[in-house]
């Protein structure tokens, strides 16, 4: 990786560190250390700075014990080291609640949902897209409806999916399929149509006919672009995951995040979000590398 790529990650991290560790930057709260004579203060409590200063002034006037405290950020912005600790705890340490799902379990569940949803969608979408792109009549017959259907928001199918498929993983996978499939058919049909027509004509003059035109010319011809489309669509599937996991019984990484947010364990929330990002970005980088290796003739792969 080039230095600039690393810098593009270090820069936001630097901003986060500055906001977290330099006391005069932001820090709108005060964390109480000694409550002094203020009756409702407790050690560790987060108080708005203005309230804290008013109470402190009150106590000074009444000549009672002064409260002490340190500037702090709101609870929803944990410092980097807290998130790092949460990451470590999530994987290495024993959880406080024995029955609650661990982060890696939630994550694995989510990844399974994504993969099944994406596989199912691709099993239908890729062949259908190629056929729509190759045969104009099939395209004209199916694409207008697909075009209409893709505007129906996938989450709207949530209740329906639960009614049909039950409350567990079925409806979640269905949401990802509905969210991905229709875009997939249109994108891949379009990619197929962009194949250089001369290649098909050359193949025909060389004696290629029927199905072999698809298997020997169309498919290898669009494969690098198809691969790139699939990479983009996989990212798409991740965005539907969050919706999908809230349907029926909450599960996976979304359940973990909402649960932790409810207990105000925001460092765990950030840790989970970070891991989603790392998995998504990491898998895309890997797939891009794989693409360069798989398609040595396609020079556009190097640019992505």
């Amino acid at each position, binding site marked *: 990786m080039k230095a600039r790529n690393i810098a593009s990650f270090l820069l936001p991290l630097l901003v986060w560190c500055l906001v977290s560790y330099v006391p005069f930057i932001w820090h709108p709260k005060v964390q109480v250390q000694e409550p002094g004579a203020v009756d409702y203060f407790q050690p560790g409590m987060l108080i708005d700075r203005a309230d804290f200063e008013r109470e402190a002034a009150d106590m000074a006037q009444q000549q009672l014990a002064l409260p002490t405290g340190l500037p702090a950020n709101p609870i929803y912005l944990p410092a980097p080291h807290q998130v790092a600790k949460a990451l470590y705890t999530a994987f290495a340490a024993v959880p406080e609640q024995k029955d609650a799902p661990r982060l890696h379990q939630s994550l694995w569940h989510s990844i399974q949902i994504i993969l099944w949803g994406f596989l199912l969608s691709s099993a239908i979408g890729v062949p259908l897209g190629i056929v729509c792109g190759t045969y104009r009549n099939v395209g004209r017959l199916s694409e207008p409806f697909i075009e209409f259907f893709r505007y129906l928001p996938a989450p709207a199918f949530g209740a329906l999916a639960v009614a049909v498929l039950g409350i567990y993983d079925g409806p979640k996978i269905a949401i990802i399929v509905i969210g991905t499939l229709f875009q997939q058919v249109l994108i891949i049909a379009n990619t197929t149509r962009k194949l250089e027509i001369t290649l098909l004509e050359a193949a025909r003059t*060389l004696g290629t006919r029927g199905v072999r035109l698809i298997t020997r010319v169309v498919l290898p011809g669009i494969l690098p672009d198809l691969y790139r489309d699939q990479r983009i669509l996989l990212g798409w599937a991740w965005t539907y995951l969050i919706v999908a996991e809230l349907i029926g019984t909450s599960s996976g990484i979304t359940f973990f995040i909402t649960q932790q947010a409810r207990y105000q364990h925001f460092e765990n929330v950030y840790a989970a979000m970070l891991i989603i990002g790392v998995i998504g970005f990491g898998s895309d980088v890997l797939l891009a590398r794989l693409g360069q290796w798989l398609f*040595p003739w396609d020079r556009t792969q190097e640019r992505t």
Partner: protein
Amino acid sequence: MSDATLPPADELAQRFARIYEREPILEVRGLGKQFATAGGSVQALRDVSFKVHRRELVCVIGPSGCGKSTLIRILAGLETLSSGQVLVDGKPVSGPGRDRGMVFQGYSLFPWLTVKRNVMFGPEMSGHPHNVAEGMARQWLELVGLSDFADAYPHQLSGGMRQRVAIARALVNEPRILLMDEPFGALDAQTRAKMQTHLLDIWKNLDVTVLFITHDLDEAIYLADRILVLKAHPGEVQEIVEVPVPRPRSPAQFSSEAFRATRAHIEALIHPPVVHHTMPDEEAAAPSTMIRFTAVDDNVE
């Protein structure tokens, strides 16, 4: 016209008599093509008839819009004809087939296959086993002088090399006729000259008949036995010119009397002295007075 370089008329007549004795490979009878457009139907080709004999090299030339590309695409079976007949070896053709190889102007090699696999494509399609196809490909790559590049991908080759691969890929199927649609049109002048000589070498040494589309007059005269001159709107055969330049051809003949006479003759056919165009072409569309965008006193001439 009594120049010594001009071949005697009877020698010329004998040469063409020998060509016409051979059986016709391609016969086009009354071929017509109409396109349906928004503004009604357009006649692209009308009543085109000609024959190409075995081992003959015929060039098709004409102004842009004369339908020469449409003609060769119909012959290849990539487009349907509206009227008339196309016979290869006396049998009418419909759709593309292995008996008619085609070389396109550009971008026709399969980018995902190596040079060798590109040439193997035809034999594999006709059901030859892998090793047989590979042997054939090697042989044809040697013929076009690209054995060293068998494992390269098309994008790694120069334009001229790509067209040589395209020729090998078409010839490996042993077509009755090789159709070439401005195959050297996208190449630079130097490479094009080399490719022309190379094509003549191949043609000389193989039992192959060639129909070659071009818009380059010198190219047509250099290569062809006969030149089919088309005129535009609609595309019709204006004349079939027998090229008097003797064979074997060499670039030195470009300045010969026979070459220049033929060139002048065809030039007059394509660009007649009095022009009545019913359709606007590039010349008519050009503005008669040019607007000046530079300083008044900044002259380059």
